[in-house]
């Protein structure tokens, strides 16, 4: 990735801000958002973090959102979560393959690249979304670091998105 050298000091490069492939969810029913709640979260399970670091801007009911979309309620902005990425695989073949379910007597912690859970507190955006029957969630990732493999086009990978409310 080409970086422009800053004139301020040595060892300082221009910041990396690269849009990556965005995610748009299927329709998520809003039934649970009709009841009163004090807090509502969007939970992303199984988020991979083996590549570059990135921020993930989350919008509700705005499928057209992209890296230039203003982060305001008018555009359905719900908040941002961040991934501190591993930065690519620095080991030999297989080093970054996540081990399967731990054996019964294996005292080691699970593999460091075990996918993460990210919890975005998005109460007001989800309260607004609850006025409708269903909603779609758009996630716009913006890469913030380099990765050894130099792949930045599809950094956001996760297993599941959930809406959880608390009263």
């Amino acid at each position: 990735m080409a970086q422009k050298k800053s004139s301020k000091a040595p060892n300082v490069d221009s910041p990396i801000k690269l849009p990556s492939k965005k995610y748009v969810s299927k329709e998520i029913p809003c039934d649970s958002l009709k009841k009163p709640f004090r807090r509502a979260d969007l939970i992303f399970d199984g988020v991979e973090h083996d590549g570059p670091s990135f921020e993930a801007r989350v919008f509700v009911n705005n499928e057209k959102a992209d890296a230039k979309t203003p982060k305001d309620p008018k555009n359905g902005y719900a908040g941002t979560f961040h991934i501190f990425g591993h930065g690519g695989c620095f080991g030999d073949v297989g080093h970054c393959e996540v081990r399967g379910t731990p054996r019964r007597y294996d005292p080691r912690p699970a593999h460091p690249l075990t996918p993460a859970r990210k919890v975005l507190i998005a109460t007001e955006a989800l309260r607004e979304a609850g006025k409708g029957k269903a909603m779609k969630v758009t996630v716009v990732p913006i890469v913030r670091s380099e990765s050894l493999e130099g792949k930045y086009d599809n950094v956001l990978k996760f297993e599941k998105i959930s809406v959880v409310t608390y009263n």
Partner: protein
Amino acid sequence: MANGLTVRSSIENLDPTALNNLRDAYSKMQDISDNRGWIYWAGIHGIPQFLCWHHSRVGSDEFPYDLFLPWHRAYLLYFEHTVMDQNNAASLPWWDWTSDESHTNGIPESFAVPKVGGKANSLASGPMPPIGKRPARRTRRGPDDPGNLPSADAVQNLMDLGNYTDFSNQVQDIHDSVHGWVGGDMGVVATSAFDPIFWSHHCMIDRIWYLWQLQNGINNIPADYLSKPLAPFALTVRDVLDINSLGYEYAQSSVSVNA
């Protein structure tokens, strides 16, 4: 020292003597190639040992636990003592990235200036080992707009999260954002600890946990966590809950004058 405790101060409040002590210790560590040196200690977090904790994981007992906060507290403690081996008057300062100063200028000047007194500033970059075919070099940064650093309000909001797991998850996200904000080698797990600002960033995270503990209880953590070891350090989660028992304290402010 206060009551024998090491006092950690904000980098913005360090007096010139304390700053010189820190630079002296870091500089000496950066010149040492054995297990007292910079590359050895930074290499525990990422390349080559990768022992750091981020995000929750499932262990052999299938309890999804997250040792992010206690593991880094133990790491800082061991590192700080190694720093003091080089200069006994040095201690780790925190970088308050919510301050007006940081939101105006970004990286604090103490970490940003390339040279001090004609010598390389040991807070501006750290040595990195060769990685694969890439040669050894000094760390680099690519900081974002200062206005994009986390706000004081964002940190204050964390204090009202009474559940440890909830707090840990949210403070970790702010932590993640600052790594990305600094960018460069700080921007990824593998190389971040080689950058000297890593230690002050984590000091800030540790301090936020301490402030949260004051409000929500020192022992506010799931019971299942208490006996978890913080490898490779000879400490468990239970051992690191009370920072005073670990021999340090966070100062709110510090002013001194010559006698």
